[in-house]
């Protein structure tokens, strides 16, 4: 369990993102991947969670276009992405109009800067 000066799981996750590195956890006891980062495994209750680098590839599990006035920035995508490691996260798919983000689309993660903090977003594999 990480309770030292490096911070807890959430803090360590964000610190890595801020350096451009996307990491998730894998349980040393049940070997399942875990997201979001935490200190007790939600699958088996184990307290030994290792940091691993995901492949970065995944599939859009669901998607919505949030409607927003053009003067406020216009419509944007919010999607749920299933990483190939078997964990799900909320994110957005960039590089295509929100209406063209489809369930089942293959996507790849990248870390971008969001007001000074690292943030994981995805790009459509086809749109590379």
């Amino acid at each position: 369990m990480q309770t030292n000066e490096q911070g807890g799981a959430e803090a360590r996750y964000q610190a890595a993102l801020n350096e451009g590195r996307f990491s998730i956890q894998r349980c040393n006891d049940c070997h399942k991947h875990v997201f979001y980062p935490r200190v007790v495994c939600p699958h088996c209750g184990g307290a030994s969670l290792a940091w691993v680098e995901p492949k970065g590839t995944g599939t859009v599990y669901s998607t919505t276009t949030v409607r927003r006035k053009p003067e406020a920035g216009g419509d944007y995508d919010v999607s749920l992405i299933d990483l190939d490691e078997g964990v799900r996260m909320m994110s957005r798919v960039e590089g295509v109009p929100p209406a063209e983000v489809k369930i089942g689309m293959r996507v790849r993660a990248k870390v971008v800067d969001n007001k000074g903090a690292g943030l994981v977003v995805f790009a459509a594999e086809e749109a590379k």
Partner: protein
Amino acid sequence: MSLRDLRGRTAIVGVGTAGCGEAHGMSDLEILSQAAKAAVEDAGLAMKDMDGLCTANLNSAMWPLNVVECLGIRPKFVDGTNIGGAAFVAHQLPAMLALNAGLCDAVLVCYGSTQRTATFGRKERTAARNILDPNPFEGPYQPFNPPSSYALIAARHMYQYGTTRRHLAEVAVAARKWAQLNPEAFSRDPLDIDTVLKARMISDPFSAYDCCLVTDGAAAYVMTRADRAKDLKKKPVLILSNATAAWHRSVSGMRDLTVTPSKESGERAFAAAGLGPKDIDVVQIYDAFSINTILALEDLGFCGKGEGGPFVENGAIAPGGKLPVNTNGGGLSCVHPNMYGAFATIEAVRQLRGECGERQVKGAKTAVVNGNGGTAASSQSTSVLATAGAL
């Protein structure tokens, strides 16, 4: 003791609402007090008889204390559980246990919110909650919650089962048709499917009409043991069972977006009640969004998984349809002050008492109430209610 042992041993004996729609100048606590007084009087009891209290509020972490002080009561049993709008259905099981253990004799379940008209309203509360109770793994992507989370659920259901926006619109139109029969409903103008489909989009696939109302409103009901209920003013409505399932907080923590906690709470509630969907005369589902009604009909077993869209077609859940659902107009057209669970419960009670006038389901003897809570079908609570004669 099992859930089955509690079957029919507790009754709802008084109900009341206040400040529904717009309660200009009033506070949450003031309209809650009015609803509580109405419920207590409806039961033929006095406020001092309330020796149990279940209540929750989105703005206040210790809300039961605000309520006991304001109402001047000293309850021996307090439950301030807040699992979202399902709470006011989920409050029933702890209250049933407390009443039947003899810890108290009358439990007041109550709620009130002036989110629509209050100076510190919905927008301000959302901003404050993002600081007090942040979700660091969703917040940066700015889902417009709760609509966006339920929109993700609806989009997945459409992808997997061929559910259409027209199916969702059927739910909104059915709710409106019931609301037109209910003088207390907030939105009673005519509504048709094309209007729903062409309305301003909020978060795809939802237009404004797929989303619940934002109103003020307070609701309260009184529970006692069934033996005591017989001597009170109104015909008691028996609680055959209540069960709650809490599965996640956020939509990204929901394993299968097409299966809700009602699958679990419904199975437990129907098993303990000794009834099934085919035995139910009237259904009250917490319809925060149009997809909620479809999901609950499936997960409670009124139709198979994925069949909810076709099930609601052609006015099937509207007045005159095959199954009366949300006979007050629901959260979509009657009232929705943040958390709606108590209102769904009260409509079921009124139907079983035969008090519903033009919208009355003739001869209704059994009802199911399905509460929904959280921003992503996070918690749900199912109750099976019946008239004394139905047992």
